[in-house]
């Protein structure tokens, strides 16, 4: 229990720290957002002054942070100048879409990488393993940008998949089953791109972690006791590999989140990525901060989940944090 509380407080501190960091970035930026607005002749100087006062941009930085933080805790994340609407609802919709994409891709990627990595580690150094290493190396060196663009070309040329977006025009009119089918069709390309871009790295790391465990002396001793290989793998080796694998899982969430940004933009998937990009190009201060915080929140949350899994899976962690 103490372990979980400790990890939770650690995660919250991390989020707080990131919020401070992002706030600091805005303070250090040469030229404020409102300078760019000032150059826009359609916006009256009085509006700008009023906005500045409203957001307290004249007050010193710590005060601004505190007032922003307090409104954040009430669910208010600021106002988007470009969309002319509060930030929170914009982000929530997009965040849901990003989560959908990222979670699906994570599950899929692990469902492929785990068996492949284990299979490869069992045959370490032999031909199948070497071929797989070669394959993953080839996949690893292809940039995600090339993958995403390539899949897009394939979609257009073949006509089998929609080339972007999350829903067809007539989505609302479809039956429930067809809605799901439409969603799935739209998801196939971005998910494929995301999975392919991280698969190579995952397979390699899984293989390394499992190979390490397979080389451990205790496993050799168990083999000497006459325990059959299948049992060895599933009841002895894999539980021992759970610790590094779960840590890898936490790490993979970060990789997938980063990857999703680019893929969402290229494939027009309405997630946090394209929103963040637009916000940056439009110099929309609070939207940018909100977007970054959301992505960090997901990453930190994912890692917390990994910590929980670790607590459940690794008895050493349980005894370490609960000394007699």
């Amino acid at each position, binding site marked *: 229990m103490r372990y979980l509380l400790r990890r939770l407080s650690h995660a919250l501190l991390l*989020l707080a720290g990131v919020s401070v960091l992002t706030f600091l970035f805005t303070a250090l930026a040469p030229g404020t957002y409102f300078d760019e607005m000032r150059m826009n002749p359609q916006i009256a100087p009085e509006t700008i002054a009023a906005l500045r006062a409203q957001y307290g941009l004249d007050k010193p930085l710590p005060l601004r942070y505190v007032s922003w933080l307090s409104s954040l805790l009430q669910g208010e994340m600021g106002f988007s100048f470009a969309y002319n609407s509060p930030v929170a609802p914009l982000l929530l919709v997009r965040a849901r879409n990003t989560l959908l994409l990222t979670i699906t891709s994570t599950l899929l990627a692990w469902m492929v990488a785990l068996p492949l990595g284990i299979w490869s580690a069992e045959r370490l150094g032999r031909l199948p393993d070497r071929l797989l290493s070669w394959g993953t190396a080839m996949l690893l060196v*292809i940039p995600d940008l*090339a993958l995403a663009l*390539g899949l897009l070309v394939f979609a257009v040329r073949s006509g089998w998949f929609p080339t972007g977006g999350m829903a067809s025009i007539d989505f609302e009119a479809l039956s429930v089953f067809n809605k799901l089918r439409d969603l799935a069709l739209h998801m196939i390309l971005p998910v494929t791109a995301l999975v392919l871009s991280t698969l190579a790295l995952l397979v390699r790391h899984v293989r390394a972690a499992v190979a390490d465990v397979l080389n451990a002396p205790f496993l050799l001793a168990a083999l000497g006791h006459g325990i059959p290989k299948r049992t060895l793998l599933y009841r002895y080796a894999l539980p021992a590999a759970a610790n590094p694998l779960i840590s890898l899982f936490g790490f993979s969430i970060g990789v997938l989140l980063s990857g999703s940004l680019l893929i969402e933009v290229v494939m027009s998937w309405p997630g946090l990525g394209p929103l*963040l990009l637009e916000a940056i190009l439009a110099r929309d201060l609070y939207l940018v901060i909100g977007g970054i915080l959301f992505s960090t929140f997901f*990453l930190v949350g994912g890692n917390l989940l990994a910590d929980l899994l670790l607590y459940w899976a690794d008895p050493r962690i349980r005894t370490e944090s609960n000394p007699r």
Partner: protein
Amino acid sequence: MRVRRALTRWLVVLGLLHGIVICAGFFAPYDPAEQDRKSPYLPPMRLHLLDSQGHLHAHPFVYSLKLHKGSFDQYEEDTTEAQQVKFFVSGAGYRLLGFLPSRRHLFGTENARIYLLGTDAYGRDQLSRLLFGGQVSLVAGLLGAGITLLIGLSIGAVAGYFGGWRDTLLMRLAELFMALPWLYLLFAIRAFLPLTVSPLKAFFLIIVVIGTVGWARPARLVRGVVLSAKERDFVRAARGFGATNGYLLRRHILPETSSVLLTQAAILIPQYVLAEMTLSFLGLGVPEPVPSWGNLLSSLQQYSVLVSYWWMYLPAVVIVPFFLVYLGLASSLQERGDAYKIETRSLGNLT
């Protein structure tokens, strides 16, 4: 030994690849900014040795492209005149390695223009743009990695050597930086900097931005090395001879970090080149008209270009050989690091 030979092989290939890009002016037939408004989106020209009448030529040649009758975007070869490809021709001026003025190019044609990789919307030769764009992207990656490793080395050394509150503070800061997905962090830092700057300023700006994103992991690795090196007996012995902290760091401890730094360099450089490409592709990096592998791809954001003009896709794959070599280099470096450790351990037991 074997590892050293593999390492040398990778370094040689790396040098060759980078050499071609460094001498872009020589290998490229044209200046990357030269426009040819009459020839937008020309497909790549094919090299021939046999002409349409079946004669074998002594030199390779190309045919100029002319529009199909009745079409305004379909091209065919104009077989009336074979444009001979000459080697070591004189062409547009450039500066080799940045300061040696020269007019010599590897190849070129006399009367018409040769477009081995096609042209873009403004009729600019894609091969030349690819080569010069490589300079921008690769340098951005190299310098960015340099900055990251410098920051990571300093912070890791301070945290590991002095320990205490410095260590806690710096490692917490590192955790913060690692809590953000790196591409989001990159965008965040880029977001709060001016959007429209001159190409040169933009170039250095994104190098600094890319460089500040990834220091956390190298810093941790360096810290680990410094922590264990600090406790080694030869460091304590040197202290016994009157060594100061600065001496110990400089002569004994930091040299131990060299292998970690090199391996990190081999991993970071391709990542950072990709970061520059991503930023420039989305319009946040190096702006037109300066070519970079990223902004060469930005026209692909329009479907019409993506689908019809396949040669505009090439900058996305040109990085693949570079990545391969860096990957091989990183593997060899790690093997070498492991081998050295095993060596010292086993020989330490010989009495």
